[in-house]
């Protein structure tokens, strides 16, 4: 099993470098000269020359990429054009907020999603099943930004339960977490349900019944563990979904997370900041996948003891 984890670790290094390369290429090479682009109206030729020299813009692309990578490894993602502060500093401030939101949303989605999926699989075609599946379909189909506004309108404007936006206390997190969590709860519920139904068709479930085990115990003792294994991988893949959603939720609810930073960076054409935030979020996703793989290999004995021992 150690070999399995080691292999996964080694594979994710090129992925991260690749991601950094793609982001770098898209942001630096393709759009031509970022400075003129940035200064748009009041272009001043000598300012352009000084800044571009200072930022090695005229060197060949691959040199700039290695230069960038070397700095990034040392934690230096360059200086934000707009805020004139080191990008890494800005990101470190924003990171905990996004993490809090993502974790809260993930917990919401697990608490709602998994039991809903299990119950609707056990009580198939019952009212409960239709209700939960309807709830999940709604969650998956609702645009996050619209649900956010709807929640703000109902729960803060009309009923005043929660503060409409801002971020200095747990109660600020509740609404955004529910808005963000609901859609991935939908995904998890639908997946848990279809997994459980698949697993119930296996031969070893029939064996369990032939041993005289009561139907409910067959589900809990035999079917559940097998069906929840793939859900673990989805929980990690959810990370990228949550981070996408976070970008919007943060702008609606005014949470100063990485998503918000990225959005502002785009609007201000602040390339280094955007580049830093994108790479950081993507590394989060790769780490998420890694955690899922390790968790999966720990839970699934077929990978844990893969040597044929007979």
């Amino acid at each position, binding site marked *: 099993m150690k070999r399995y984890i080691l292999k996964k670790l080694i594979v994710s290094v090129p992925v991260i470098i690749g991601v950094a390369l793609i982001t770098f290429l898209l942001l630096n090479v393709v759009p031509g000269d970022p400075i003129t682009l940035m200064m748009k109206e009041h272009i001043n030729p000598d300012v352009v020359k000084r800044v571009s020299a200072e930022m090695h813009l005229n060197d060949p692309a691959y040199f700039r990429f290695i230069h960038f990578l070397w700095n990034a490894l040392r934690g230096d993602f360059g200086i934000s054009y707009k805020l004139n502060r080191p990008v890494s500093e800005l990101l470190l401030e924003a990171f905990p907020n996004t993490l809090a939101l993502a974790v809260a949303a993930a917990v919401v989605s697990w608490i709602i999603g998994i039991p809903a999926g299990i119950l609707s699989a056990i009580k198939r075609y019952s009212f409960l099943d239709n209700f939960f599946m309807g709830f999940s*379909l709604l969650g998956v189909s609702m645009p996050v930004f619209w649900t956010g506004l709807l929640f703000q309108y109902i729960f803060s404007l009309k009923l005043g339960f929660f503060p409409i936006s801002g971020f200095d206390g747990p109660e600020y997190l509740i609404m955004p977490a529910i808005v963000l969590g609901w859609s991935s709860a939908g995904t998890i519920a639908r997946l848990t349900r279809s997994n459980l139904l698949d697993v119930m068709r296996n031969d070893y479930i029939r064996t369990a019944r032939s041993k005289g085990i009561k139907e409910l115990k067959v589900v809990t003792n035999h079917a559940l563990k097998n069906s929840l294994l793939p859900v673990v991988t989805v929980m990690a893949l959810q990370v990228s979904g949550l981070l996408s959603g976070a970008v919007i939720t943060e702008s609606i609810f005014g949470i100063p997370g990485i998503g918000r930073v990225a*959005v502002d960076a785009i609007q201000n054409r602040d390339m280094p900041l955007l580049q830093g935030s994108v790479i950081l979020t993507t590394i989060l996703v790769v780490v998420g996948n890694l955690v899922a793989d390790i968790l999966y290999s720990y839970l699934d004995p077929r990978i844990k003891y893969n040597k044929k021992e007979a």
Partner: protein
Amino acid sequence: MSANVNGVVTEEWTDQDYEVEMGNGWKELGLNFVQNKMAVIGGVIIILVIATALFAPFIAPYDPYKVNLKLQFQEPSAQFLLGTDMYGRDVLSRIIYGSRISLLIGLVPTLISMVIGAIIGMIAGYYRGKIDFILMSISDMVLSFPSLLLAMVVMYTLGASLINIFIALSVIGWAQTSRVVRAQTMSLKNKEFVEASRAIGVRDIVIMFRHILPNCISQLIVLFTLNIPSSILSEASLSFLGIGAQPPASSWGLMVSNGKEYLFNAPWVTISPGIAILIVVLAFNFFGDGLRDVLDPHLKH
């Protein structure tokens, strides 16, 4: 009763044979589809939305772009079914015109990314080895980007316009499809009917398009119907963040975004386009789920 065909004695079959109750493929599929309520409802709504998009100029009561400040923030009334927005434009007409953008955004990039993804997945799954490793690492990288962020980066470089949205959404979509098709190709490749063709000497390209692709079609169709809603949602989110469609285009996402400041006194401006997105996305999800039950036999019962 056995017939003698040029020397080889073969048994003639008794009259009752197998084909009576098997029915042919597509008729049977149609039958199951109709029984599946979910798919039918989804299908009907989709047809309605396509109709509205096509005949928007005839259906829309007012000109969606005509500004009339006197009629600003009209409550939903008989005259303006969904009220008017901050520039006095009729919200209903703008939604009707907006359906064009959403459908276009939902269908075209999804199709592009499906085709690219299917071909890459098939090649990676069939040839394995180095090609597989390279293609799949690229798709891993693309999949590591949160889809919205990647779209934002693409939009940042290319600038905000409809064509660029196509490119951005296609760049996101192909990786997922390539993974699904690759897995399917790898399992089909070991099936004996592919080995048979290789034993006959059929070229790889022909094997891929004659034997492998047709057996992926049903999964691709389901994936297609389920990817459309996520494209629609992505476009709406991009427009909401102001990096998607630019004014005066009436993209639903943009309408929600423009209306959000006036949430308190004119909620209908923000809420109605949101409902429109919800209905279309729900319809495609319904249709996709229903289709998967029909096409994926063992899920039938």
